[in-house]
């Protein structure tokens, strides 16, 4: 018996003492600081493993733990016997045994005949055969996706013990033992969790790997099981009939539910636009209140189509529920909790095995509400399943719907324009530099002929900036700022743009200002782009007609113009 184990301990620690081996500090530190071995992602002290099998006192504690007399095993140090000052938790039973066996197989430890016998006693207690014997005849009850199942233990184990070809074949079927395979896989995971199989038994390597793959959703994707069974109680407002028709009327009948959900999302992004006033006011102020009323949604039509995030969310949820019977959840990012009209919100829902999030207005100008109009890849609708295969299936459904709506010919390979241009770069000998003056001329000509809703117009100009100008040119020769203009009728403020252009490099100097300025107001359909003098700009800033959109306590200036748009109040 190890004489170092502390016997005289405060009564409060008597319970702890049942499953904690209390040792002196130097022994404790020796264990804590010793070299570690990794078993299934857990690091265990080699010194501890050696003591557990070689030291009788340690072994007794281990045996009680393995045989279930104690529910855990810890190593502790107490300074004065009144409290546990420091503790090491031992890992699960199979990890300890596998750790000891690994030390033996890698010759880091030798056992005597007696010690082998002791090890064998422990192994027998938590063997897989013993586990099966204990479970024999038991039937496990589950409620999975609203369906009650009673599944005998033997059925689940025999599936795991199948030969590799048979196992793979069944995993590719729709059903296993007449149960949808996703439900069956879920049941197996629950079996091992409820029975303590993962923590308490030595599982043969083949079965262990299969369980690991099942739990990682690599073989069967059951991640969505038992999710979204309840309806979100949030009220969803009715849509204007004309708008609903615009979105839904051409949706094919013969596509899957997932494809319909994607179709509706894409159509909504193409039909709606972000509210310019809400954007210009940075989502604050009295003028934004109407957007926070769910009833306001029913006023949105294909012509009066400006929305904000929670409106889009609400409308999308309405259509998912009405046409597809899909349950959803509102995902609020707000300090005010889950209140309609506060913060930012996205939608989460499930269709069969797919778990999906949808956020059409994240980053506003670069969000799906704009990207859908230029057939750019959409970023706001995602499949969040961990299974790569499920994600790939989602992408394929998405491409199919995007092609359908854009009336593209179906691509044999799914290659983006960007990828194709990369190939083109390699084979073309026809690429030439284009003078900055020509690019600026193209910019002014195209911007001046814009006929788009305001926020889409800004999205469009940002795209033009990217395709016309190299990064260096955007840093040195052409700048674009979106600011607010409060001198307007019908709105409290609207967003406007200022282009700053200088072929020789934009200057910040106030006295030698050779920059050229253009004022962009997409609300002015006749003349959206006009030149503006630095003096007029300065005046508008001074009188607070022009202001910053965004963080109010950050100073922001237009190069070469006196006066800041922001600044601390």
């Amino acid at each position: 018996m190890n004489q170092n184990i502390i016997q005289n301990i405060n009564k409060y620690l008597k319970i702890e003492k049942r499953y904690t081996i209390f040792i002196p500090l130097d022994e404790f530190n020796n264990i804590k600081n010793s070299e570690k071995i990794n078993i299934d992602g857990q690091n265990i002290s080699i010194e501890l493993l050696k003591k557990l099998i070689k030291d009788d006192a340690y072994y007794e504690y281990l045996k009680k733990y393995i045989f279930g007399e104690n529910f855990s095993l810890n190593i502790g140090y107490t300074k004065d016997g009144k409290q546990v000052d420091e503790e090491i938790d031992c890992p699960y039973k199979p990890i300890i045994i596998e750790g000891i066996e690994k030390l033996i197989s890698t010759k880091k430890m030798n056992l005597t005949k007696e010690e082998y016998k002791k090890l064998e006693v422990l192994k027998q207690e938590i063997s897989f055969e013993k586990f099966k014997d204990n479970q024999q005849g038991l039937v496990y009850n589950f409620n999975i996706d609203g369906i009650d199942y009673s599944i005998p233990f033997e059925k689940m184990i025999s599936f795991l013990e199948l030969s590799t070809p048979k196992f793979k074949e069944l995993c590719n079927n729709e059903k296993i033992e007449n149960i949808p395979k996703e439900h069956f896989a879920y049941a197996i995971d629950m079996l091992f969790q409820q029975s303590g199989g993962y923590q308490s038994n030595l599982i043969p390597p083949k079965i262990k790997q299969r369980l690991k793959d099942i739990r990682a959703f690599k073989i069967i994707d059951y991640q969505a099981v038992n999710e979204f069974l309840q309806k979100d109680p949030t009220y969803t407002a009715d849509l204007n009939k004309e708008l609903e028709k615009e979105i839904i009327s051409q949706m094919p009948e013969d596509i899957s539910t997932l494809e319909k959900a994607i179709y509706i999302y894409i159509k909504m992004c193409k039909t709606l636009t972000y509210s310019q006033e809400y954007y210009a006011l940075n989502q604050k102020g009295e003028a934004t209140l109407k957007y926070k009323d769910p009833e306001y949604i029913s006023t949105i039509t294909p012509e009066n189509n400006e929305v904000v995030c929670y409106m889009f969310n609400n409308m999308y949820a309405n259509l998912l529920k009405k046409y597809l019977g899909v349950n959803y959840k509102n995902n609020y990012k707000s300090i005010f909790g889950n209140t309609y009209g506060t913060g930012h919100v996205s939608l989460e829902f499930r269709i069969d095995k797919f778990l999906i999030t949808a956020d059409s207005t994240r980053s506003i100008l670069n969000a799906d509400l704009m990207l859908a109009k230029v057939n750019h890849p959409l970023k706001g609708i995602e499949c969040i399943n961990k299974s790569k295969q499920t994600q790939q299936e989602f992408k394929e459904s998405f491409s199919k719907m995007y092609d359908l709506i854009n009336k593209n010919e179906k691509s044999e390979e799914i290659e983006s324009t960007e990828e194709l241009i990369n190939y083109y770069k390699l084979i073309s000998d026809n690429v030439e530099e284009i003078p900055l003056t020509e690019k600026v001329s193209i910019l002014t000509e195209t911007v001046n002929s814009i006929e788009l809703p305001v926020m889409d117009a800004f999205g469009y100009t940002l795209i033009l900036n990217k395709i016309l100008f190299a990064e260096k040119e955007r840093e040195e020769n052409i700048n674009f700022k979106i600011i607010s203009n409060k001198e307007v009728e019908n709105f409290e403020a609207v967003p406007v743009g200022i282009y700053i252009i200088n072929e020789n490099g934009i200057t910040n100097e106030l006295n030698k200002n050779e920059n050229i300025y253009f004022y962009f107001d997409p609300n002015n359909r006749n003349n959206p782009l006009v030149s503006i003098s630095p003096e007029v700009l300065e005046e508008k800033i001074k009188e607070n007609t022009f202001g910053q959109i965004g963080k109010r306590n950050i100073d922001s200036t237009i190069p070469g113009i006196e006066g800041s748009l922001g600044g601390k109040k």
Partner: protein
Amino acid sequence: MIEKLREVNDKLIKLNVNDEKNLKKYKLIQKILKDDKCFFKMKIEYAYSILRDLGIKKQDLKKVYVELINSKNL
């Protein structure tokens, strides 16, 4: 406008059926042009290069390009 470019490209594919290098190029351009909005997704330098490949004269490049990236094409 993009429909016209597709037609021109299809003719060029037929004309270059025995010229492996050019055929490869025009087949690639054919793939690029499948997307109605492709010109919104590439730099102007590559757009001009493709237009030159399709036989658009230097003096017409700007006019054609401006029409292709007009906001009404969104």
